């Protein structure tokens, strides 16, 4: 089948190229397995550790009893495990996975490793819309309808995230090419706009609403309850379940929109799906846990270095590492100053910001 290729021809390395490709696939698989182990280990730790000292054996017994519906379920320890730690763990897993996947999706869409929903204003947009829902929701929706205000939050946050993503994309992308500088500048402008609007909200809100707003902007898993989870989990699970379909499209989009079309991708449909998924993931996460930064940028970036940029591996790996990172950060947040608690945003920023700077330095070193 060789078509008269000139030049030296392929020099055969010690390990054949076929082996090298297989090894890379094996490495990606191994990475995924390692991440699953990490998430499981952190989850066990998260269920076992906290301000209330409960011996591991007892945690297991409580969970077993809870699972079978037998035994004592109403003790304080049982309530701490099943009523506080478990919903908090599940919320952390879902929100962490969603934030990391949203980051990976957005970076693929913009073909830029710096595109993070938190950095380019999508989270601020979602947060602002959540704030509007908190402050104005009661006025807009008559109480007689009997709608739980919290049920409106994810919808509001989703619409806010969607609006900011669309505005950002419209501004930054022309003829299928995304200007990095324009995107970051537009993101900063959007963030500032959302900040200003949030200031207005703070001005018109009463004391109780102001407290909710403040809690939001800090970000925390402290409010995780089964009721919240029931609203958030379907959205986030659906988002996570839908992402693998987009892996091939994202890979192709990395080469450019025209190339993706040439390669057989329905580009416009894929882009619309990505935007909606990012908005849903960020919106639901913001509604559940407030604005938590750096997960979306650190996780996919780190994984590209370890398992490679192929989205078929990157997306599930991001979901796993994002889940693990947030559960781990929450574990730190609620144990180091127990019985008090740090805002989780402080922990993720403390991990994320130095890592981000390291990435920038490394880039400078590689591409002077």
């Amino acid at each position, binding site marked *: 089948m060789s078509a008269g290729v000139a030049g030296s021809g*392929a020099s055969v390395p010690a390990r054949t190229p*076929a082996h090298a490709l297989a090894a890379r696939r094996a490495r990606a698989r191994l990475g995924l397995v390692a991440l699953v182990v990490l998430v499981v280990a952190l989850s066990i730790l998260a269920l076992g550790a906290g301000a209330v000292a409960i011996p591991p054996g007892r945690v297991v017994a409580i969970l077993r009893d809870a699972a079978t519906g037998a035994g004592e379920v109403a003790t304080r320890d049982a309530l701490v495990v099943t009523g506080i730690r478990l919903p908090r763990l599940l919320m952390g897993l879902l929100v962490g996975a969603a934030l990391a996947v949203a980051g990976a999706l957005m970076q693929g869409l913009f073909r830029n490793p710096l595109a993070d929903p938190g950095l380019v204003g999508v989270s601020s947009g979602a947060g602002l819309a959540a704030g509007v829902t908190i402050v104005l929701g009661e006025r807009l929706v008559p109480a007689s309808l009997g709608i739980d205000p919290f049920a409106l939050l994810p919808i509001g946050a989703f619409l806010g995230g969607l609006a900011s993503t669309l505005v950002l994309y419209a501004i930054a992308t022309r003829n299928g090419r995304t200007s990095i500088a324009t995107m970051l500048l537009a993101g900063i402008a959007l963030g500032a706009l959302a900040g200003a609007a949030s200031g207005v909200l703070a001005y018109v809100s009463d004391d109780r609403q102001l407290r909710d707003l403040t809690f939001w902007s800090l970000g925390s898993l402290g409010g995780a309850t089964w009721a919240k989870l029931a609203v958030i989990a379907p959205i986030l699970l659906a988002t996570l379940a839908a992402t693998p379909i987009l892996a091939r499209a994202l890979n*192709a989009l990395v080469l450019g929109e025209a190339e993706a079309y040439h390669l057989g991708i329905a580009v416009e449909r894929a882009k619309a799906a990505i935007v909606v998924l990012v908005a849903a993931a960020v919106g639901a996460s913001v509604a559940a846990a407030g604005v938590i930064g750096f997960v979306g940028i650190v996780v996919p970036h780190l994984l590209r270095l370890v398992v490679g940029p192929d989205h078929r591996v990157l997306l599930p790996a991001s979901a796993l590492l994002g889940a693990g990172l947030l559960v781990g950060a929450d574990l730190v947040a609620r144990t180091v100053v127990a019985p008090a608690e740090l805002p989780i945003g402080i922990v993720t920023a403390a991990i994320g910001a130095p890592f981000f700077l390291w990435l920038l330095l490394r880039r400078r070193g590689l591409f002077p």
Partner: protein
Amino acid sequence: MTALIEAADVAYAVSGRTLVHPTDLTLGAGETLVIVGPNGAGKSTLLKLLTGELAPSAGRVRYGGRDIRALPAWRLAAMRAVMAQSETLAFPFTVAEVVGIGLDGVSGGARGAARDARILDALARADIVHLAARDVQTLSGGERQRAQFARALAQLEAGRAAMGDAPRGGQVLFLDEPVSSLDLGHQIALLEAARALAEDGLGVVAVLHDLNLATLYADRIVALAGGRVVAAGPPDRVVDAALLRDVFAVPLPVHRRAGSGAPFVLPERPGRG
């Protein structure tokens, strides 16, 4: 010769400016068509109309008799591959992964080792097996161009498999300035590989700047200027000193090879003829 592509009166205008005036063009199976012309003549735009990337503002492009706008992207991707002018990538994909992306849009079929085998085959045909594990971000322009060529070859193979391993033919390979960054050896190698595909029955459409390479490899040359076809036909007819002076606005004396009598161009410095 069955027509793979028929373009009837295709034109393209954007914000009141006509980039391509109404043009008729056909490409037959096994034919190599080379588009030449000065910068801004509309070569790339014409190519984009033929690949479906741009929707014509007038006229119609048909693949095997079917309107290209009615073909879904995945169907079209099995029928033609495009090697565009290469861009840098933002993510550290390896060359093998980039070639693999060429396989994935068309067929979900090949996985694991079978997919690897297809990738390696395309790498070998583009003479870049040794670059398989390299990060594309670190490649030179020429290496990147060969990686893109391998990706297009992989896509054609996948497309053939998706269409039930049909005999070669019925597919089209588009090359937009495919040799612009290559050394002479690799320029020839790439065009030889394309020509070999044409001999298997594929249609090949290439935009080239080098008139001598165009003459060597084209069955037909289309010369564009100002968005209009100013000449079309076998190299013998199009490579003509008077015509070339009109198109490129510099003297380009045409000589004849000893033996075959094929034309070749030997540029001269203006006014020193």
